[in-house]
């Protein structure tokens, strides 16, 4: 079976990076007016040469997003099930070597959390865990999905990468969407940031979206953690990955995220800073490159930024998030995975969305459609 790795291997990080930084304003102008944009166009749009064209990019991004998605913003919220983790990730509060109290929610605790999330108005939830295969495994996921399925129209998961058979086992339980971020496509740096645990296997992670496609998952989310490496190059590889997956698994939908490294207790300083302006550039570049992909922004970003980005290409945002297991009801004070920047409640966010003439949507899929 072929996989993304076959394509990835034909690229070299340094050459790719150099080619992005060599893009000129002529390349950017060509990319702006092209009717179908290529990977080379994407390089131009994320390059430093595109900075003076930001307003134009924003205008095109807005139009394309309206054409495809209308005036609608999806809302989602994470439900952290567990912070147990056997991996060491240098940027994460749940890292194995970090001294935090470990907790995996019991069925009763999960239901307490669910009650609060439902009260906020949500019909879509994103399940999040670390990687602790002894306790938080396919069996645990099955039980959890079974438990919460009656309460949500749409369930997404952001957990450790699984084998093909495992994904196949979970779809009958109502799993619809899986997010797996590569963190960085820079192989050596990946090794540095993931020195221990199953996650240190770069290739296994890289080929996870292939397994998701083969398992027929409806939607998958890709992304890198911005701050680990040169974001322009990393995001080019994300676009390359997306391009490959869309061709290969044409029945799946895709979403992209672009989390910027956030402080957490004992945390890592970003190696590469990305300004707000550059994040806007990236969001618009993704939209110009791909009109259909969903673009998602989390509560890592500031209120002011989130208010203004709604109209520029984003299609889904989280609100009211807690990033610790039990954070909504069971144990609100426990240590979080990363600091939230936008602390507003989902209702406040919904109000802000409406004030801009957009409709907040609390789910975007209903499992009753397949059963």
């Amino acid at each position: 079976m072929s996989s993304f790795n076959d394509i990835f291997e034909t690229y070299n990080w340094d050459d790719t990076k150099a080619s992005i930084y060599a893009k000129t304003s002529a390349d950017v102008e060509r990319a702006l007016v092209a009717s179908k944009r290529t990977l080379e166009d994407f390089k131009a749009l994320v390059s430093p040469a595109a900075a003076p064209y930001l307003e134009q990019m924003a205008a095109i991004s807005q139009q394309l997003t309206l054409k495809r998605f209308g005036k609608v913003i999806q809302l989602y919220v994470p439900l952290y099930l567990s912070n147990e983790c056997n991996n060491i990730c240098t940027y994460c509060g749940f890292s194995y070597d970090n001294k935090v109290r470990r907790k995996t929610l019991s069925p009763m605790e999960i239901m307490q959390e669910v009650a609060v999330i439902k009260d906020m108005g949500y019909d879509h939830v994103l399940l999040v865990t670390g990687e602790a295969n002894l306790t938080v495994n396919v069996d645990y996921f099955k039980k959890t999905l079974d438990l919460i399925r009656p309460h949500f129209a749409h369930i997404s998961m952001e957990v450790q990468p699984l084998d093909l058979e495992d994904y196949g086992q979970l779809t009958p339980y109502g799993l619809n969407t899986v997010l797996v971020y590569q963190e960085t496509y820079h192989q050596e740096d990946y090794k540095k940031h993931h020195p221990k645990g199953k996650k240190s296997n770069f290739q296994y992670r890289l080929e996870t979206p292939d397994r998701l496609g083969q398992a027929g998952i409806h939607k998958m989310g890709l992304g890198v953690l911005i701050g680990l490496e040169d974001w322009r190059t990393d995001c080019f590889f994300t676009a390359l990955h997306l391009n490959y997956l869309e061709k290969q698994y044409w029945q799946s939908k895709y979403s992209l995220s672009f989390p910027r490294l956030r402080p957490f207790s004992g945390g890592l300083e970003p190696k590469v800073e990305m300004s707000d302006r550059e994040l806007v550039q990236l969001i618009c570049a993704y939209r110009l490159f791909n009109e259909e992909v969903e673009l998602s922004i989390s509560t890592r970003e500031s209120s002011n930024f989130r208010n203004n980005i709604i109209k520029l290409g984003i299609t889904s945002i989280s609100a009211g998030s807690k990033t610790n297991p039990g954070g909504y009801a069971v144990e609100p004070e426990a240590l979080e995975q990363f600091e939230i920047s936008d602390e507003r409640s989902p209702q406040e966010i919904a109000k802000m969305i409406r004030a801009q003439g957009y409709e907040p949507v609390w789910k975007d899929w209903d499992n009753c459609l397949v059963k």
Partner: protein
Amino acid sequence: MLTIAGKTFNSRLFTGTGKFSSSALMEEALLASGSELVTVALKRVDVKNNQQDDLLIRLKYPHINLLPNTSGVRNAKEAVFAAQLAREALETNWIKLEIHPDPKYLMPDPIETLKATEELAKMGFVVMPYIHADPVLCKRLEDAGTAVVMPLGSPIGSNKGLKTIDFLEIIISQSNVPVIVDAGIGSPSDAAKAMEIGADAVLVNTAIAVSNDPVKMAVAFQMAVEAGRMAFEAKLALPVVHAIASSPLTSFLDE
């Protein structure tokens, strides 16, 4: 260079043998076109005694590969049978799959075509199906093991050009196999357009065969296909836009 099933082609112009006023003229035109893949209707050749067949004799050149087509069959079963016959008679496992149950418009049958592609691919054929410009069907055919897809530009023999261009662009953007625009290409400019939007090759028959000067027209198509391909590779220059200073959408960044 274009590669299909391990065979490379210098010319991206594929041609056909039908509708020429004489087989001598056909030979001359096909040679002038530089085409390296020529489709032959199985129903027109003498499969039993092919050493004597006038049409086949005129195509015996080292650079010309024969592509038997199943035109005339009405379903998958007949198509598979025809392909086996072609393999034996013409000693090639390449097959252009054409299934049209309707004799009036010769519209390809998507369901039978998919079925036949699946079977033929399993039997080791290099399958080149003629189909509607239907992006989903193209992906289904890919899964079924097709070697290429050959969507139509407009109804066969109509010379109407690329009526399906919007669908062709979708097909080209997501295909993992070569896309060859088949049917409807009426003039060299249509062929050039197909190549400019990124088609891997075009198949032209009627427009060459029925022109007043098929040899000259064959050369015109050859040049058009090359020009179109070059333009695609070089990227068309587009109208220039100018950078503008800050304004409403991104001005919050300056606050």
